[in-house]
């Protein structure tokens, strides 16, 4: 296919979620992953070289056109975006689930030392976490993990892309801030 590039670009343009190479393969009915990957890399480079307002983000296992952070201010105005209301409790819970998944509620609560029922419910409602089933122990508690939406939201390619947990000795001066 000699017009592979504009075709893939058009798919990226209309897709409302990160587009995986597998999806592109299925649409184009081709087998050559390498060619697709090359086109994607080319496109990404082009957008960067030409200083386009958007870039090709590798996120949640796929590729997505996203506006650059430096223009966020203007996009926010148009979209009338509300500041992300993620409380400290929610972020801590989310971090625990992201790093410790699959994880059950009592483990999360053990780590944080507080009840997490309300926070878990809110995170489920916002689609940032999902249930992965039930653990085969008395009470059959739900098992939690993060969702694809979580990766999309926090600009992560996949879970391996999460920064490694810091050693406390390493932390030294940079104590976590009380006020966030």
């Amino acid at each position, binding site marked *: 296919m000699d017009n592979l590039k504009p075709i893939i670009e058009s798919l990226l*343009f*209309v*897709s*409302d979620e990160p587009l995986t190479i597998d999806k592109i393969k299925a649409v184009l009915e081709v087998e050559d992953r390498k060619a697709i990957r090359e086109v994607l890399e080319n496109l990404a480079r082009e957008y960067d070289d030409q200083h386009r307002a958007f870039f090709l*983000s590798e996120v949640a296992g796929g590729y*997505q*056109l*996203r*506006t*650059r*952070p430096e223009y*966020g201010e203007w*996009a*926010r105005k148009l*979209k009338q*975006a*509300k*500041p*992300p209301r993620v409380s*400290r*409790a929610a*972020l*801590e819970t*989310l*971090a*625990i689930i*992201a*790093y410790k998944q699959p994880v059950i509620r009592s483990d999360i609560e*053990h*780590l*944080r*030392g*507080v009840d997490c029922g309300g926070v878990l419910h809110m995170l*489920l*409602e*916002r*689609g940032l976490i*999902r*249930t992965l089933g039930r653990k085969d122990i008395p009470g*059959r508690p*739900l098992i939690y993990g993060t969702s694809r*939406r979580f990766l*999309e*939201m*926090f*600009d*992560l390619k996949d879970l391996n892309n*999460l*920064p490694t*947990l*810091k050693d*406390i000795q390493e*932390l030294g001066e*940079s*104590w*976590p*801030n*009380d*006020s*966030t």
Partner: protein
Amino acid sequence: MTETTLQETTYQVQIEDVFEGPMDLLVHLVQKNEVDIYDIPIALITEQYMQYLNVMKAMNIDVAGNFLLMAATLAHIKSRMLLPVHEDEAEEEDPRMELVRPLEEYLQLKCAAEDLATRVRLDWDVFARSAGEMDESAAPEPEGFVKVSLFQLIDAFQRVIKRVSHEPFMNITVDTISVKARITEIVDLLEGKESITFEELFEGHATRGEVIVTFLALLEMAKSQVVRIMQHIESGVIRIFNG
């Protein structure tokens, strides 16, 4: 620590909002005293911890059980520290480790949470095309469907239960099925399918007991978000979707 400085800091606490849990308070005390978490002056920290609890009580804040549990742990460690260490027991672990490990892990995850907070955020820093529709909501709802209200669900339930005969044809002992077992059956029913109708759930149900168990199972699953119960806007058909 003098009385006045304590007053000052507790005043700050009021502004900063109360500590969410005992771990938060402990982290705060360790930070404030600038002590090494691997060498916590346990007597000092315990004392300050108890002072905070008293202040919280005085402020009429319900001191939750987990705060008291931590207080007990601190007191226990403190008392163990006071015991003389015999030469032959020198190998024994520092009693403070009981505190250090969870504290360490908590601090690590607190840092990770802060990292998350500073990441480039979709729908704030960056925007994707037609991202707005998914904004703030969970998984997109199936097209043409709305979330069913409790009353509509009860109506549907009443329709099903009316169909089940009130009078037993004959008296036989029925194997009763538990809600828990029924949940497993419903999960099986849903496996490999996106959704099933409300009526399909009750297929083959002969007794009111069975219908009620199924309905309870459905409510339980909806509560734990294993399924979503949706109604088709036009036909009014209620369908159960995989959560």
